[in-house]
Each structure stands twice: as C-alpha cells, then as structure tokens.
C-alpha cells in the first residue's frame, strides 16, 4: 500500500494541471460566451444541402 504515497501525489499533480488549464481558459475570456458555442456545434460546414427556394432559371 505504500505505492499510495507515490500514486496519489501523481494523480493530484495531474488534476492540478487540469485546474490550471481551466484557469487559463477562463481568464483569457474563452468561457465568457456560453450561449453561442452550443449553437455553433450544430452547424455543418459545406455538408448542408441548401434548401433554397425554388428558382426559375432566367
């Protein structure tokens, strides 16, 4: 069980780096807009076939 004395601090260090990443993301304003990203997620680039209004070729 003495492996715990190594394993736990290692896991905590990993968790701490995740928290640092979160702090960086939050401080640089990436998490300010929580409303638009959900909308952007549903958008396809180019894959969408246009449901354009029926046009008469002039």
């Amino acid at each position, binding site marked *: 069980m003495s492996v715990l004395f190594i394993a736990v601090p290692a896991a905590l260090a990993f968790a701490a780096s995740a928290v640092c990443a979160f702090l960086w993301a939050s*401080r640089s304003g990436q998490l300010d807009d929580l*409303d638009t990203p959900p909308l*952007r997620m549903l958008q396809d680039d180019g894959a969408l076939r246009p*449901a354009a*209004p029926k*046009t008469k070729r002039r």
Partner: protein
Amino acid sequence: MHTELVAPHPRSRPSAPPPTPATATACAHCGQPVPSELLDPVDGLQFCCSGCRIVCNMLRQHALDGYYAQRDLEPGQTAPALVTGRDYAEFDDPRFLALYARSNGDERTLELLLEGVHCAACVWLVEKLPELVPGVTQCRLDYARRTAVVSYRTATPTGVDTRARPEATTRASAIARTLDRLGYPPHPHRDGERAALARREERDLLTRLGVAGASAGNSMLFALALYSGGFADMDAGHMRYFRLLSALTALPAVTWSALVFYRGALGAVRARRPHMDLPLSLGIVLGALWGAFNLLRGAGEVYFDSLSTLVFVLLAARFVQVRQQSRAELAAGRARALTPHDARQLNESGAVEVVPAESVPQGAHVEVLAGDTFPVDGRVIEGASQADTSWLTGESVPRRVATGTHVFAGTTNLMSRVVVYAEQSGAETRAARLWQEVQRAATRRAPIATLAEHASAYFLVGVLVLACLGFLAWLPSGAGAAIEVAVALLVVTCPCGLALATPLTVSAALGQAARAGLLIKGGEFLEELSKPALIVFDKTGTLTEGRLSLLRWLGDESLGPAIKALEQTSSHPIARALVATLADVDAAVATAIEHRLGVGVSGVIDGRRVSVGAPASVSGPLPEWADAALSQLGAEGSSAVLVSVDGEVRAVLGLGDPIRKEAAGVLAALRQRGHRLALLSGDREAVVQHVAAELESASGLLELFETARGELGPEAKLAFVEAERERGQRVFMVGDGVNDAAALAAASVGIAVHGGAEASLQAADVFATRPGVQPILELCHGARRALGVIRLNLAVSLVYNLVAACLCLAGAITPLWAAVIMPLSSLSVVMHSYRRRMFGADQ
C-alpha cells in the same frame, strides 16, 4: 461621455406589411404573406418587402443558401428582413473609429451591435462575413449580447510582396453595408462600464466555481476512503494520510472560492443587514479551523468534504442567479431602439457633412430630413414641419415646428426638411439630462429587504443558540466533546438547503417569466410584485395602443377611395392612420393635389374638389350634424378630420389612440386582487379623463382609478411617485416613454412595456416584451406563486436542519451523516424549484 439615451429610430422598426387575405403567396425569404400590390407575375420568387428581396439575392449570389436549411432546423418565428439601405459613411470617420474600434498594427477590430439576430442560422450567416467581404479576417457573433466582433485588415502588411500574395483590405463602412444588406443593421457598440463590470464578475464567479468543483470532487474521493475505513479498520498511518489529503484538496474551495461568501458576510456585518452569507461563512470557517485542529492532534472528526461540496453547490446556485440577471438586463437593453448617431452638419458653403451626433458644436447648422430624428437640441432656423414628440412628452398628436421653435434630440421630424441651429448635443441634451436624473434616482433607491434575509437573521440566531446549548449540555463529558458537538452543529446545519431555497426558486421563476416574455431583473422585485400596491399606469402605449387610429366615421361612407387617394401622398401620422384603415380599399385617381401644412390635403377627383383636413380647412359654417359631431369628438379628446366635396362637408372622421380591448378586464382583475390604480399621463386632460371614464364603465367598477391626471411632465410624475413612497406606500409604475423613466426608477418596481424608449427600459426593473396590460396581471400572479414556492422550500430545508440538529445534540452525528443530509436537502429544494410552474401558459 457618450450618451446612452436613444429615441425610437424610425427605420429600425419594420412596419408590418398590411393585412392580406389568407390565400396570399408567402415570401420566399421570411414566409410572411406578400401584399397583393407587390406580387410580380414575372419573377419566380415573391417577396414581402424589398428588405427580404435584397437579403435573398445576397445569399444566392454568394452561394449561402445553406442559411435556409440552417434556419429550418429550428422552427421559430421569422420576420421580414431589416434592411435600411444606409451607406454608413460615418463609420469611416476617424473620430468614429477612435471611439469604437481597436487598432492592432494593420488590423482593426470593431464591435457592432446587430439588429435582427434571432436564431442559430443568423450566427452561421454572420460568421460567414470573411467570405463575403474580402479583407475581413474574422467575425464572431456573441449570440446573447447580439454583438459581432469583426477583425479586418486596413492596410497591406509591409514587407509582403503584393503581387505574389494579394492581401485584400476593407473599410468599416463596407462591413456595415454588407451586414445591413444581410438583414442585420449594425450599430457601434462599446461595453458600458456596467456591462463590462458585470462580465468581469461573471468570469470571476465561473473561475471560482470551477476550482471549487475540482476541490470538492477530489476531497470527496479521499473522504470516501475514510468512510470505508470507518467500517473496516484502517491503520493510523493511512488514516492520517487521507485526512491530510482531504484537507489539502479542500483548501482551494474553502479559502479562495469561498471568499465570495466571506466578502458578502463582511458586507452584511458592516451594513448591519442580515444575509444568508453570515451563518454560511461562520459554518465554513469554524468547520475548517476545527477540522485542521483535529487533523493536527490526530483525533476527532473532519468535515472537509462536506464543506467543499457546500461551497461548490452554493457557488453554482449563485452563478445561475447572476447569469439569469445579466440575461434579463441584456434582453431589455437589446430591445431598445438605437441611436441616431450621425448628424448632417452644414458647413459654410452649405455642403452637408455627416458627423457623429455628439460632436456637433454649439452654433452649428444641422439639416434634418423628413423622417429622420433630430440629433441635437436647438431651434429651427429654416423650414417648417411637424415633430413627433410622443416618447418624450407623451403627446399623441404631433407638434408644429417652424422658425424659432425649439426642438429636442431624439424626437422625429415628420413632414419636411428643416435646418436646426444646434444648442446642445451629446450629454447636454434634455433627453440625456433626463437620463442622468434617472440614473441618480436608481442609485438613491434603498434595497429591498427580502424574505430570505429575514429568514437568515432568525436562522443565525437560532443556530448560535443551539450551538451554545449543545456545548453546555456536553461540557460535563469534556471540553473536546463539547466543542465537537457545537462545531458539528454549525457545520451540518450550515444552511445548504436554506441558502439554496431562494436563489434557485428565483432563478427558476425568472427563467420561466423570461420565456413568457416578462424580463425581471432581480429576485427582490419578484417579492415586491407578490404584495398589494398602488399601480400607476401611463396612458399612451400602455392602456392605449399608442398609435393614431380611426375611431369614428360619421357621414358618407363611400368616400374611402377619395380619402385614400389624397392621404397616401402625406406622411403625417393622421394620413398614415387613415391609409392603414383603408388598406383594402383601392385609391381613386386624384390630380392637382395640394398640401397645406397643419391643415390638410386637397385634390381633384372625378372632377370634384375633395378636401380632407382639420376643421380649420373648411371655411364657412358647418352643417348642424357636423358641428355636433365636432363637439362630441372634442369632449372625447379625439382629433377631428373633415371630408368635404366641393366645399360641402360630407363626413366627419374621429381619430384617436384606441384603448386596448383587454385593458378594462385586466384593471378590474387587479383591483380585485387588492391593488389600487392610478393613471398619470402627459397627454391632454380631456383625453385622459375620457379614457379613465371609458375604462371605468367597461370594467363595471366604481372609481376604478384613485387618481387620473393629464398634462404631467416627467418631473411631475416623479414627484407623485416619490410622494407616495414617502408615505410608505408600495408603488408599481407602468410606462414606456422617456417621460416615465424617472418615475420608473423611483417606484418600488418599475415596469417598462413593449415598444418603450431605451431610457425606460434601463430605468425599469421589469420589462414586458408583449404589449398591453395583460403582462402586468401575469406578473403579479406569477410573483405570488413564486413566493409560495420559496416559502415551501424554506420550510422543507428547515425540517432537514432540525433533523440534523437533533442528531448533533444527541452526539450521533458523523461526517457520513453530514455528507448524506446536505445533498438530500439540496436536491429536494432543487427538484421542487424547477418542477413547479410559476409563470407560463397554464395561469
């Protein structure tokens, strides 16, 4: 200082297409019915307005038809496209750019507030701007704020060989024009100080929340190990190790994240006002200190997992609450009509220079075209016209302006071009100063003591008393055990459920209200709305429809075509009202049309001279029936329009602001709930009394209004509201114009209604996005329900706390119990708050 006060921009509001029969063709862009006169049999696609046509062509031109597919993913309301067709030349002015754009070498970043954004497809389209305008490097739309941040190149970077790699550049006006032609008229935007501060606070709160979450999660893991060790034996070394780890991982939550609560508690102590943060902070601090002490001496319990989870859950509730509030403020601000930010200044040679409105110096000559808003305060020096001052003064009939007349920034020039000698601009205009008064009134207002604050006061006292009792009761067993019991009590009864009860219910209620079109800016207003009060109504736009409409037609009814033929050549509000009423009548052919300013229109139709105008337009005596009609209309306060053919009066039309159909019923219902009603208006006394009398008879109640007064300026309305509040009366003010804004800020709860000027939207505590008085009734009803839910939540949490307290006093509490009880109480409160319907369809 950039004035934030604005007037309803005439071009910002798309006029609804006139009503058409049900079998009409649908617009290819927005799906609204196409009016018969715009049907083009040649073209394959039909559009309801030129705006829609322009946008659709833009989309097809750039192969962006995907927009329609995107939009159809999300069924919702569509509206005709807003296209103003302006050239936005003032966006290139260096003064403008200095105010609104940020430079970064060759690149510039511009923030623009967009109208017409209403769905995810709009986000998709706007962010495609780099494809539409060469030179734009990036465009991101913040959906909640409706703000687009556009980065573009203004000059080719030096050292780049332009022949090998041509880098396009563009200008701000080109970007603005493109956005406008896509249906999103842009306006310059800079975060007001308040908005920027709110954004920073939200960001700070989110950061602390995230850290608290990480902290709580990890601390719970180690606590789990300790619980397991409680059932099966764990050796002392591991026990100490895990206790230390649970303390260390809980540290960020308990120190940094919890600062939010500690600051709140200190503020409450300094202001001598009770607040739930006080017992909360006490519990966390004492619990943490005692836990640290127990950790060091190696005996006794540690509650770090419960403490850090407590911090996390409560911060989450607070974050939800803060976001709710800022959303409501944003939505209210967004619905505003936006500034006439440019002015047409005439220089010495008489040429027109378009400049920012705030920069017009005193003494400059400013040209104001028909249909534009006056950009400055001043006097007319050339031309004569009529001005629509309804949102500033509440008058429903336009006011004549001629040489020497004073005009005010924000009012609309209706008839013809005038030149104004500028006297005040920017922050010095009457409207801006009124706005400053509004802001001062808002800061002077005392904060409302809420139910939650009262509850927290009693709670704190109760818990401290119990803790002392527990301490004393257990003292005979030893100091250590006694302190253990007291601290455990403080930690476990730490008002998790109690502190959640109000914010969560408030958030849920505000969210439901927002979906029902009622934007409430804070929970304290919800409480006030649930209690009986004196409700003060504005007349124009609130109890009445707010626009001139045909109320009565006496005499010859066949004159419709003739009237339409003459009136469709005028842009006077009376003319527009008549044309709108006669929408499905075909106009006759008129020749020799003559306009007489302020009097009327006349022309020749079928060989007869027809004249439509004010009573002054008819010379000579009137037939008796016409005379009687005129005096009746005068008594009602309506405007009379006489139609005469070859000098003989054939019809008398009465125009006025019609009372909303549902108003009487709603007012009666409000009276029945125990509210008192008052009517204050800036309009003429005769009109106000007539409206009051009509509502009274329609509602079937005697003395419907306690007070009904007309011809009141904004200062008088403010004085009335303040006087009532001095007497201790709770006042709800309902209004929409700038002449209501100061009173809205001074009332206990200010309610701004749909279509209101920006000043009242900012000054108000509630914004009703639907027109009419029905929303007021829904507000009061929903608020009462919400208060009921809050009280039930408080009762339920108290029960949990009592159970926990009993366990503590009996000495039976362990961290495991605490870890179970706290989530349970929180969960019950959360479920109850979010599942109860407070505002919404089933009222």
